[in-house]
């Protein structure tokens, strides 16, 4: 057992930290910084940030060098996530493509597809959105009903996707379509790449309860997509999907952990600063216990992530352990943000304006946290996965 980093890893961390300090967008990184107000401004900042990362050599960290990546080790990827959280850097706009799609194209794509798509993912020239969920296929993803019918060397797509993150600002969509409605549910699915500007695609933003709007519904009306844009083969999209999803719960949790840690540290500062009845709130026994409990649980998360990391480095599966981590952090984060409102007291109710404590950001986080137990597989689904795959309980 050893919790130290190698000199190479430490060097990577320090270089990255320095690079972030030099390259972060103006004002970012300061706790009090006012983030862009509109979703469009936000997306613009993030798209620019993707380009900056690319220029700095930090795009596609995990990708092999032959595809323009950095070939970074798992530990370097973890360091990367820790440092960008620490620096409060913007999230990459094209993260889904870099983490999920890229590795999937590398594994299942044709040479032409690799040439065409991979470089533009890294450079941020193509922003991608993910078209998996449908109104009647959420937890039960394999029951998608968006149809694609072959017409010569084209597939003609009709149907609807939902929760397509970033669809309003994306250039491309990777999506699942049903190409054989007669086949069993998990067969007859095709993994397709489509230009969002293809005629017949309509994107309607979905506003979330936080007021932000990074999701959308996407409608397909006789959309013609070349067969050449099928990833894998027609009707054989499910294993391709499995590859993509296996990356969803991978190292990303390190980023969430590191972000929550930055926020919890902020919260501890708040609790020491805000006074109630002449003493800092951090001295109130009830708050104190709950804050200590949150800090402890966050450490449990951290060490669990590191244990999984070692297991992965040793060649163990990433799979269902990711569900443990997702379940744990999403519920922990809900408790932390709820506690934050109690620490702030009645002023936590104020969402904006000069009187808003901490710029209303804890309130935003509090609301946002409610989505964390839903997206990327609801916590009910995560519990199924844990029970069935890790404990071997019957379906």
């Amino acid at each position: 057992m050893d919790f130290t980093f190698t000199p190479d890893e430490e060097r990577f961390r320090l270089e990255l930290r320095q690079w972030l300090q030099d390259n972060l967008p103006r004002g970012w990184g300061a706790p009090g910084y006012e983030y862009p107000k509109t979703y469009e401004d936000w997306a613009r900042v993030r798209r620019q940030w993707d380009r900056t990362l690319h220029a700095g050599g930090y795009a596609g960290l995990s990708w092999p060098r032959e595809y323009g990546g950095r070939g970074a080790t798992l530990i370097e990827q973890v360091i990367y996530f820790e440092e960008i959280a620490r620096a409060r850097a913007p999230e990459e706009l094209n993260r889904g493509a870099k983490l999920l799609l890229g590795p999937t194209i590398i594994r299942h794509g044709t040479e032409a597809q690799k040439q065409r798509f991979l470089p533009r993912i890294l450079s941020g020239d193509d922003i991608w959105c993910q078209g998996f969920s449908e109104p009647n296929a959420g937890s039960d993803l394999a029951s998608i009903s968006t149809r694609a019918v072959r017409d010569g060397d084209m597939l003609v797509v009709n149907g609807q996707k939902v929760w397509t993150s970033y669809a309003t600002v994306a250039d491309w969509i990777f999506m699942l379509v049903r190409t054989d409605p007669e086949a069993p549910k998990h067969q007859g699915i095709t993994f397709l790449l489509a230009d969002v500007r293809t005629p017949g695609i309509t994107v309607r933003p979905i506003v979330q309860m936080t007021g932000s709007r990074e999701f959308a519904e996407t409608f397909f009306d006789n959309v013609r997509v070349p067969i050449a844009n099928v990833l894998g083969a027609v009707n054989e999209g499910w294993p391709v999907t499995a590859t993509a999803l296996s990356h969803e719960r991978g190292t990303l949790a390190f980023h969430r952990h590191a972000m929550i840690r930055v926020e919890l540290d902020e919260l501890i500062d708040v609790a020491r600063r805000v006074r109630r009845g002449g003493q800092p709130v951090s001295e109130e026994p009830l708050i104190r216990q709950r804050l200590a409990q949150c800090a402890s649980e966050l450490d449990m998360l951290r060490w669990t992530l590191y244990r999984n990391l070692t297991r992965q480095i040793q060649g163990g599966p990433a799979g269902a352990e990711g569900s443990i981590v997702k379940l744990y952090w999403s519920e922990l984060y809900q408790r932390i943000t709820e506690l934050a409102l109690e620490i702030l007291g009645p002023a936590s109710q104020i969402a904006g304006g000069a009187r808003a404590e901490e710029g209303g950001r804890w309130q935003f986080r509090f609301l946002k946290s409610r989505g964390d137990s839903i997206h990327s597989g609801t916590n009910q689904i995560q519990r199924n996965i844990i029970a069935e795959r890790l404990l071997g309980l019957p379906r």
Partner: protein
Amino acid sequence: MYFDFSKEQYMGRDSARELLDARLPTTRLREMLGTETGFDRDVWRGLAELGSSAVLVPEEHGGLALGFLDLALLLEESGRALLPAPIVETAVMLPLALADAGPRLQKRWLPGIASGDVVATVALGGSEGLPLPAGLGVRAHREGSDLVLDGEALLVPFGEIADVVLLAARMNGSGTHDVSLILLERGDPGISWERVEGLDPTFRTSALTVTGARVGPGRVIGEPGRARGTFERMLDAARAAIALQAVGGAERALQLAVDYAKVRHQFGKPIGSFQAIKHTCADMLVAHETTRSGAYYAAWAVDTRAPDAGVAAAMAKALATEMFRSVAGHAIQVHGGIGFTWEHDLHFYFKRAKYLEFALGTATQCREVVAAARF
């Protein structure tokens, strides 16, 4: 021993529900997000015609001279409909406070309250969030027979449209429990309002700043610094009222979850047939039914001025608002992605629950009331 409402009380409930279902569907609530005041005078008048704010007003002032129990189910309905109006303040707190005021103050305000012409609100807390009354945000000191007021009250419901503001202030230099109750009117010098953007967009709040405002004895209820008893009766009733609103809101959130669980299919079955959803809904119902019982009891205790009214109200307020938040949160989870959207109504319930949790004393503060009374 009869623990249920009367037929008349249920009829009143039905009328209120009918009115609110018709005039305040959530589509209307959404329209009102964009209006200047976030307040709908037609709905307010409609409720007043049902007697909402006349219930606790004496007959001589045009009221119905009924009891808190006769208002309880209407308050529950107001929670169910997420009514964006200071009904707890106008219909409960002002009549109770004015009961202890002199005849001139009563005559000035009670008839308008009873008729629905007057919209009233109450200004209490400062930003520190200390328990009441220690946490009152405005201080008063005497200058001759006048009181001079300074300070701030955050989160005053619909402050900017209120015709009258009942301000509770602590007396400077005296114990933390010496309360004065003062009636401020719109346009009084030395007071200013600022709209506050709150967590709950359907319920407008403002911050009241008072800077050297001077009021004569005619504006004070009872004696300056001696209104503790009035203040507490008013607070007890308001807590019971909020508990009832939470029960009403939670009922609707639970209903939405159950209805959705019956029709939403995944894996070829309604999701309500999966125990993960089924048991969550069962737990929601258990929490809802039990705290509803407590809220109803608190209503009775307030109505009859039972010795345990303050404890019953504190219990009900703590448990019902926490239940509402939990039920609304679970309802979102049952809905999955759609529950997290602005388009779906659930988030309004979740946000109202969070508003009610902080209003008039947090659950922690309410539990302390229970502890102080019981051990």
